[in-house]
């Protein structure tokens, strides 16, 4: 499956400044591995050392948060858009 991946500004140094890149795979995890092959700088940004989805990264398949779709096992279809977004949180403590 060919999908479109939207990359936030914080990750664009790893994609040569490109905001939208192509990806291939049948699941989000496969697309991520394909992205990492094409853009090795994304490795530590997308996945933890144990291969889990990085907790500070939100991933949407079209309009849906993949945390509720099986995370990295979430299936993707031809033409889907994956949107990567950093978690926005903080506070005084």
């Amino acid at each position, binding site marked *: 499956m060919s999908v479109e991946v939207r990359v936030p500004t*914080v990750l664009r140094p790893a994609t040569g400044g490109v905001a939208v890149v192509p990806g291939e795979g049948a699941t989000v995890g496969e697309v991520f591995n394909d992205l990492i092959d094409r853009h090795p700088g994304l490795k530590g940004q997308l996945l933890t050392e144990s291969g889990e989805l990085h907790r500070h990264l939100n991933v*949407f398949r079209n309009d849906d948060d993949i945390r509720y779709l099986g995370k990295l096992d979430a299936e993707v279809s031809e033409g889907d858009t994956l949107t990567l*977004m*950093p978690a*926005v*949180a*903080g506070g*005084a*403590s």
Partner: protein
Amino acid sequence: MLVIRKKDLDLMTCHALDGYPLEVCGLLIGTLRDTDVETDVTSVEPTENVAASSRVYEIAPKVLLEVERRAEAGGTQIVGVYHSHTHTDAKPSPTDIAQAPDPTWHYVLVSLRDEHPCVRSWKIDSGNIEEEEVVVKW
């Protein structure tokens, strides 16, 4: 340097006061310049603090996506985030620094510690913070 309209500055401050004693948060919409020297905030989007806490804040990922899409449709983008500190100064906490999502963003803090609210803006990059000038326009 952050350029922001007075009505948006007031919106953030009123949001912080209305939300007290909980921290409030929201997103700054505008245009990031390549030089990163000056950013015009064209609007401010108050959001729910889903952490509902006086010590931490979190913006729901779905809201972040919706705001980004609206911003992009208008030819702008998310250029930063604001949140309140109810009992500490308007300076990024270690939590703010550790969790800062994007070095190109502007991080606005509204402190309610003293009698009058205090608003300051910061850049946060790789654990380093630097205060920036806030220019208010009508």
